[in-house]
């Protein structure tokens, strides 16, 4: 049945080469942990992607209950965590995953750095990778405010103070982030929410696409 549906579509739009391009490629011996166990260091990039997928999924599900509003944000988080089935697990996945993804990203960066895998012709992909790292830090930063508890509030106060420290444009940057020159409140929360769930993920997807296309195009760097 599935084969028939696949054949029907394939006959019309010729999808086989499409997914061959995505899924069918050689894995060189020197990156295969089954061949040489120390090659496990090559897994960190894939693990980062895996955790990112978990973050996207758990985040999507969390927004079914979460409200980005100062009156209700904390209450909705408390509700989804204590009253909704498996709420603690889903929020836990997003909470811990946020840290794990940074750790994996860092390990991946270390591997690329110490193997010198960023050298020509892969400098561009290193740059894209660093941008992804910044986006991830931005996601962590903006997501931290969303539960709207004391820790979130004061962490954001500190963030905004740091932003204010930028020479010349500091004050403007702070107002731009907080939505108000003095108050860390309603507008700050909606802004951070919008940045966290729309702007940064959009940038992340674009950069990840570039990152993966470049890997496929240039291939994995050779053995050391």
């Amino acid at each position, binding site marked *: 049945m599935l084969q028939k549906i696949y054949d029907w579509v394939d006959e019309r739009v010729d999808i086989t080469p499409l997914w061959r391009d995505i899924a069918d490629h050689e894995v060189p011996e020197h990156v295969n942990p089954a061949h040489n166990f120390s090659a496990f260091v090559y897994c960190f990039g894939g693990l980062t992607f895996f955790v990112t997928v*978990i973050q996207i*999924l*758990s985040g999507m*599900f969390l927004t*079914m*209950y979460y409200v980005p509003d100062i009156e*209700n944000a904390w*209450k*909705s988080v*408390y*509700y*989804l965590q204590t*009253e*909704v*089935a*498996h*709420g603690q*697990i*889903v929020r836990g*996945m997003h909470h811990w995953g946020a840290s794990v993804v940074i750790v994996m990203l860092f390990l991946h960066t270390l591997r690329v750095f110490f193997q010198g895998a960023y050298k020509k012709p892969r400098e561009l992909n290193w740059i894209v990778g660093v941008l992804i790292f910044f986006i991830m830090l931005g996601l962590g930063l903006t997501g931290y405010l969303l539960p709207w508890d004391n820790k979130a509030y004061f962490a954001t106060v500190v963030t905004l103070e740091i932003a204010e420290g930028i020479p010349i444009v500091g004050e403007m940057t702070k107002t731009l982030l907080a939505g108000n020159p003095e108050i860390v409140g309603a507008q700050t929360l909606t802004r951070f929410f919008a940045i966290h769930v729309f702007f940064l993920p959009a940038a992340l997807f674009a950069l990840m696409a570039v990152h993966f296309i470049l890997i496929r195009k240039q291939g994995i760097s050779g053995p050391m």
Partner: protein
Amino acid sequence: MSEKKQQVSRRQFLNYTLTGVGGFMAAGMLAPMVRFAIDPVLQPASTGDYQAVAQLEDITNEPQRFDWTIDQIDAWYESEVTKSAWVYKDDNDEIIALSPVCKHLGCFVSWAGSDEHPDQFYCPCHDGRYYKDGVNVPGTPPAAALDEFEYKTEDGTLYLGKAKPRGA
């Protein structure tokens, strides 16, 4: 291994194992999230406590609107919500308490809401009409009679429970 026994090839075995492990991991990831998402569907139906609505002496043969407020808990949001019913005594002195929710698409019906039909319930959204006993007027949009509240009387007070569809 004898070559005649065409059992499972190495490639097939790996395929099955990897698909199995991958499927297990995907399921482990998705199961809590799906259960989380479908939680509202699995909540038990509300029991519908009886609420004091009106004094029996105020109820006449003409449908009158009675309002009462309930404390509604909507997840993290608690509020007072006003409910309404159209209540009257029929010819046998039986109390009839009708839900004001139109059976067409859920708007709010009023007794004598239309000047042309002073002895009917009228829904302004699509001109749905109901006779005094709540039965829908044929040829108007509603396809069923107005829901009727379960009720009980105690010490001269009318208590209303849940609105139930006719014949249920």
